[in-house]
C-alpha cells in the first residue's frame, strides 16, 4: 500500500474531487477516479520535496473553522477601512516563526492570504521569520501573538 499510494491524503482528495465533478457516479467514474488517484500522486511526487504528514484531523477541522470566522471578521474590518475616507496606518510586521515544515508554512501562507488585511511579504531563508504587511496596523505585537497562538500552534500540531 505504501508503494502504491505514497501520498494517501492526496489520493483520497483527488478521488473525491473527481467523483464530485463527474456528472454521474457510476462504475466508469469510480474506476477512472481510482486511476487518477493512483497515477497523479506518483507522477507529481518529485514536486513534493518533503513528505506530507497530516495528523490530528480534529485540530485541522477546528483550524479551518477558526480561519473562516477570522476571515469573515477581517472582511468586515477591511471593508469599513476601505470605505471610510480616513488615512490608514499600514506597515510591516516581523513574525518570528517556530514552525519549520514547508507544508505547514504553505498552509500558513494560505491562511494569511485568506485573511484580508494581512499579506505575506517575505520568508527568511532559514524560515525563522516571516514579514507581513498589515493594512490597518494598530497593535503589532498583539497581531504577532494572535498569529502564533491561533494558526502556528495548530499547524505545528498537524504537520510536525
Amino acid at each position, binding site marked *: 500500500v505504501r508503494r502504491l499510494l505514497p501520498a494517501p491524503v492526496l489520493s483520497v482528495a483527488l478521488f473525491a474531487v473527481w467523483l464530485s465533478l463527474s456528472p454521474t457516479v457510476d462504475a466508469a467514474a469510480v474506476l477512472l477516479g481510482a486511476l487518477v488517484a493512483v497515477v497523479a500522486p506518483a507522477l507529481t511526487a518529485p514536486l513534493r520535496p518533503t513528505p506530507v504528514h497530516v495528523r490530528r484531523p480534529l485540530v485541522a477541522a477546528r483550524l479551518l473553522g477558526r480561519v473562516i470566522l477570522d476571515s469573515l471578521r477581517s472582511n468586515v474590518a*477591511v471593508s469599513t477601512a476601505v470605505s471610510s475616507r480616513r488615512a490608514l496606518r*499600514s506597515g510591516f510586521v516581523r513574525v518570528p516563526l517556530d514552525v519549520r515544515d514547508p507544508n505547514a508554512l504553505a498552509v500558513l*501562507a494560505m491562511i494569511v492570504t*485568506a485573511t484580508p488585511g494581512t*499579506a505575506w511579504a517575505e520568508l527568511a531563508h532559514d524560515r*525563522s521569520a516571516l*514579514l507581513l*504587511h498589515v493594512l490597518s496596523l494598530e497593535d503589532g505585537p498583539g497581531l504577532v501573538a494572535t498569529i502564533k497562538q491561533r494558526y502556528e500552534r495548530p499547524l505545528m500540531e498537524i504537520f510536525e
Partner: protein
Amino acid sequence: MSDVASAVLRLALGCLVLAMGFALLIAVVALAGAVAALVGSFGLLSLRSFFQRVHAPTLASTVGTWSIALATALQQSLVRDQVFVHALLVPAFVAVTAPITTIFLMRAATFRRRVAGEDAPPPLG
C-alpha cells in the same frame, strides 16, 4: 369538498412561502458576495500605495467567491433536487492558488523598493 380545497390551497401557499424564503436567502447570499467584490474593486482604485492596494482584492477572493459559490450550490441543489457541490470546489482552488500571486507581487514590490532605496523593511536574511 371545501375542506379539501382549502387544505390544498393552504399547502400550496405554504410551499410558495417556503420557496420564496429559500429564493430570498440565496439572493441575499449572492448579493453579499457581489458587494464584497465591489468594495474590493473600489479599494483597488482608491487606496494609495501598492502595499495597501494588495489587500483590496482579497475581499473578492474570500467572501466574494465563497458567497457566490454557496449561492450557486444552494440554488442548483434546489433546482436539481439533489446535492450539488461542484461550486464549492471553486473557493477551495482559489484558496490554494491565491497566495502564489500575492507572494510574487509582494516580493517583487519589496525588491523594487529596496533597489530604488525607498522606504522598505530590511531583508530578513
